[in-house]
């Protein structure tokens, strides 16, 4: 049976969605899975939404996660979590970073930033884990590790070998930040595991 794992990572341009999904996809391949990854990043640099799909299993044809079949969604931003919540599979998990990035359009009359996007996401996704990644990274002493910390939270949902994660993270993050990023990754995994256990 060809069971494909579908991961969805969403956020706003510049948040590190692309880095997190590159690490995840490389780790999936190193763990021996056929892997595909897809993102559309045409206008993301200019404040747009970014969404990246990572799929792995014995044989993956399409690089796109079918609507309503994401096993795990990792959202770097609260409103983006809500935008993508319907894409999560029944029984799936959403890991949501508490950050809000309010677009300029919300200053006009026609659009408002949602009041409680995480609460609204809970109506669509069975299990929602909230993480304040920026605050956690501050505690660890480097705000630039949000992306890897959130990836750590996602890793708690997967069974890849720790050594694989370590190897891929070391090869992908800026020189000199490897150990800090690995600590952030471990923190993310710990927070997600604790949050799920507390449910």
């Amino acid at each position, binding site marked *: 049976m060809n069971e494909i794992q579908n991961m969805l990572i969403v956020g*706003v341009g510049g948040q590190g969605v692309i880095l997190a999904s590159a690490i995840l*996809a*490389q780790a999936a*391949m*190193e763990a021996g899975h*056929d*892997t*595909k*990854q*897809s*993102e*559309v*990043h*045409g*206008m993301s*640099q*200019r*404040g*747009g*939404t970014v969404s990246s799909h990572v799929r792995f299993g014995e044989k*993956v*044809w*399409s*690089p*796109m*996660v*079918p*609507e*309503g079949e994401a096993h795990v969604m990792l959202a770097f931003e609260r*409103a*983006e979590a*809500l*935008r*993508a*919540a*319907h*894409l999560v599979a029944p029984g799936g998990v959403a890991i949501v970073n508490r950050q809000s990035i*309010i*677009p*300029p*359009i*919300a*200053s*006009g009359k026609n*659009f*408002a*930033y*949602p009041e409680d*996007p995480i609460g*609204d996401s809970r109506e*669509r996704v069975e299990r929602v884990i909230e993480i304040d990644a920026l605050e956690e990274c501050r505690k660890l002493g480097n705000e630039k590790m949000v992306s890897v910390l959130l990836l750590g939270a996602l890793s708690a949902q997967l069974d890849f070998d720790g050594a694989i994660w370590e190897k891929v993270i070391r*090869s992908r993050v800026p020189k000199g930040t490897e150990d800090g990023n690995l600590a952030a990754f471990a923190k993310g995994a710990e927070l997600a595991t604790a949050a799920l256990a507390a449910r």
Partner: protein
Amino acid sequence: MEASQKPEEKLRYLLSGNEAVALGCREAGVHLGAGYPGTPSTEILETIARMVPEMYVQWSPNEKVGLEVAAGAAFSGARALSTQKHVGLNVAADPLMTLAYTGVEGGLVVVTADDPELHSSQNEQDNRHFARFAKLPMLEPSDSQEAKDYIAVGMDISEEFDVPVLFRMTTRISHSKGIVEAGETQKPAIRGFTKNPLKYVMVPGHARPRHAYVEERLVKLRAFAETSDLNRIEWGDKKLGIVSAGAAYVQAREKLPEASFLKLGMSYPLPLEKIRAFAEQVDRLLVIEELDPFFEEQLKAAGIVCEGKNVTGLLGELTPGRLGAGLVREGMLGASTEVAEGAEVLPRPPVLCPGCPHRGVFFELKKQRGNVFGDIGCYTLGALPPLSAMDTCLDMGASIGNAIGASKVSDGKKPIFATIGDGTFLHSGMTGLLDAVYNRANITVVILDNRITAMTGGQEHPSTGHTLMGEEAFDVDLEGLVRALGVEHVENVMNHDLEDVQAALQAAQEHQGVSVILAEAPCALMPYKIKETPYEIIEDACTGCRLCLQTGCPSISLTGTLTAEGRQRAVIDTETCTGCGLCPQTCNDHAIMLVSEEVTV
């Protein structure tokens, strides 16, 4: 490229389609690559510049020149690659159509990266039509492995049939990653240029027999397509047979794991007899393709009964959801579980970055109440609210021609402007400006010179002083160029100084004839991030008037405290503010101060 290797296995990489094309070039021993940036094709030449040092690559000022450069190398017996986005092939169509006649000596592969869904394009044209139009073979990979493999295949076809080979990618193929297994590396020699006027000098007397050659070659290519394993049959259940290619094929394989497939690696010419034989074996034949019914119409014209667009529709990308819905509607798939509707969440339209040098120009341009003919680049975002200062966007370089035409039929009541980026001006705006001078148009052209090709991620161009391969280059003097074209009224402005911009716009309008405003200031992001002391809003001074929001700067938001009158105050995000100094000029209450200043007050 990071390799993962198991013992006694070939090197395996996780590569995007564009990176895979670069690896394919290395393996096929391609000597030269030339092109012009354009999403989703840009990373092909960028990856080669980084990872394939044995290959020469360059950005040309536009796609036409890029294809001509590649053709010159192929005429000279080298293997050559030309890259562009779909609309880029329109620009390169002139050399392409006659290259079909001349053929090549060394292999020539011409990549066209189409953009179904218009992720970042001005139209959604289906460039498979170019293959039929120019009578050229077209390869179409469906994943990264094929994107790599088909480069060598394309080079072989090109050399065997003396023909340029079109290579169609789409955004989903170019930007999706998949596992690629490395192959053998060839080292073809450069054979040199052999004079052959009957083949290369396309005057009517020579081109007439070459046309006959083109038709004969197409017959041979058809025969090749019938037997080539690029077009393969994968038998499954014979109730439903699918003909598909490219990104549509992998979607179809996933949705219909039981069906039989005829997978086309070559989108033109079609192996119609192979398809006919396949069709006879299945109960129902369905063509699954994105955009136009390119295969479907050819099948129907050949008398092969099939369905297609009734399932897939004519618009956009074939997502799993759209394909599934079409298959269910036509009774080819049992109803699947309903996907819930998405929540209504405010959109995030792209905006000019904090500190973008284009902002000040559009802020002032809006006040001139003219008609502003626009162009394509980051500055196209000047058309969106709140700036709303650009009225058209057609194709690269169109702004100046459009402005000339408008000025010739204008009643003179409104000033007429063209706004164009430096990259776009060098791509195809120079000839428009020459036209404006030559034909005495009364227009003002604003050249937004941010010294980079920003829209596509920061590529070099002839006025950046560097080449794609990182070498120092001659840096075109735009003012000298504009004056040489015959423009007499040229103004240089400081983009972030609103008074200066306004004065220049007014002086230019008073000038009868063509005037040019050179608005030069570097992009805030590329090649270096600009970050100076940020500004902040002094809470007590802010009256909540919202004037600063009219700049459309994403660092400013209406998230502050309420004034006594109940108006919400603005706030500047000091993390993202670059300190460009534009917004303080809009504030009548002197509420916007440099962060350090406030500390000392």
